């Protein structure tokens, strides 16, 4: 007759001003490092921030942030612990590093379960790290959270950008909010992606160079914030933030 979980999702998210999905048509373009670093940058600006890892089968944000051993508290639902000032929720609390293969319906159920039981604090931003593509997670978030704002990541590759085009078209057809497109792993600057993005009437958020030092900073939030990658990301997303 009715799935009681669907009734409370809006209520659970009602303490959050902005919900930002970091997404792309393509895998491996840097969604997880962008989502993780973005949440740290927002927290450093003194904002109340959360990070939700919805890449259930291949989660990565816990490795990027270096989250500790704390686990969620049970209090009329699940209260996520904070790491480096970021309220953090992921399926890794329940699976550890075990392989957790999920098919479509399982992904949907797990997303609904997490959204309906997690009790976020009062947040200005919840950043959501998405799996690549136009599959279950993207469709479920479009359906369940219409006010979701999408931050799209691409690389300079034509192939990556072509997948991003499809994603943009899908989101536009559904009238979803697109914050803009971020160009990551840039080796040789060129205006090509900027031109394409602007021709579509979207905001080009900026370009992030390939940073050979990023790898060694992964797992250490402080080190991550000191990278050139973080500096470029900070400049790129400034336009999205109050002052």
């Amino acid at each position, binding site marked *: *007759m*009715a*799935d*009681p*979980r*669907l*009734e*409370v999702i809006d*209520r659970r998210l009602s303490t959050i001003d902005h919900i930002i999905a970091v997404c792309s048509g393509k895998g491996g373009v840097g969604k997880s490092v962008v989502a993780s670093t973005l949440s740290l940058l927002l927290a450093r600006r003194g904002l109340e921030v959360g990070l939700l890892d919805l890449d*259930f089968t291949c989660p990565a944000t816990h490795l990027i942030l270096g989250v500790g051993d704390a686990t969620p508290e*049970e*209090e*009329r*639902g*699940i209260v996520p612990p904070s790491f480096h000032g970021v309220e953090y929720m992921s*399926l890794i*609390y*329940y*699976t*550890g590093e*075990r*392989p*957790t*293969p*999920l*098919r479509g*319906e*399982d*992904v949907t*159920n*797990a997303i609904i*379960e*997490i959204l*309906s*039981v997690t*009790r976020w604090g009062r947040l200005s931003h919840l950043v959501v790290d998405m799996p690549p593509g136009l599959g279950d997670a993207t469709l479920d978030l479009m359906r369940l959270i219409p006010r979701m704002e999408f931050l799209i990541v691409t690389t300079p590759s034509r192939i990556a950008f072509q997948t991003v085009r499809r994603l943009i078209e899908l989101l536009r057809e559904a009238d979803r909010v697109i914050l803009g497109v971020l160009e990551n792993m840039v080796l040789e600057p060129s205006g090509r992606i900027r031109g394409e993005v602007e021709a579509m009437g979207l905001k080009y958020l900026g370009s992030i160079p390939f940073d050979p030092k990023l790898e060694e900073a992964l797992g250490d939030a402080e080190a991550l914030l000191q990278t050139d990658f973080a500096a470029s990301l900070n400049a790129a997303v400034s336009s999205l933030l109050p002052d």
Partner: protein
Amino acid sequence: MHEWALAEGVVAAVSRIAEEQGLKRVTEVTVRIGELQQVDREILIFAIDQLRPPIMRDAKIIVEEAPAKLRCRVCGHSWRFDPKGLEEEVSEAIHFVPEVAHAYLRCPSCGSPDFEVVEGRGIWLASVKGLRGDG
């Protein structure tokens, strides 16, 4: 308590359905809970009781339990989930998000983690009965 989150969903769903159907008073609510999620029946009923809005004041709450049936997608073997014998941490993880069963359970016949939960996953509102208008 996870049951509180579920109870909140049940109460919200019942309220919405009562409004949609023009019920003045809800007399009976049937909730089905799947074995896989191992919902504590007593806590669930207690939580629903605490959260009851006026329209549900006298409603009888019926909680039915559904066995969890799993079927392997590789070899077709079907079996029933049995929480006994699971480590507490594992059964707690499955309680919070039943899908994480795929990290811990394997088909007893071929060892595959690629199984489906045919029945008895979580919580479901099965029926809402009540009185309309001045009835």
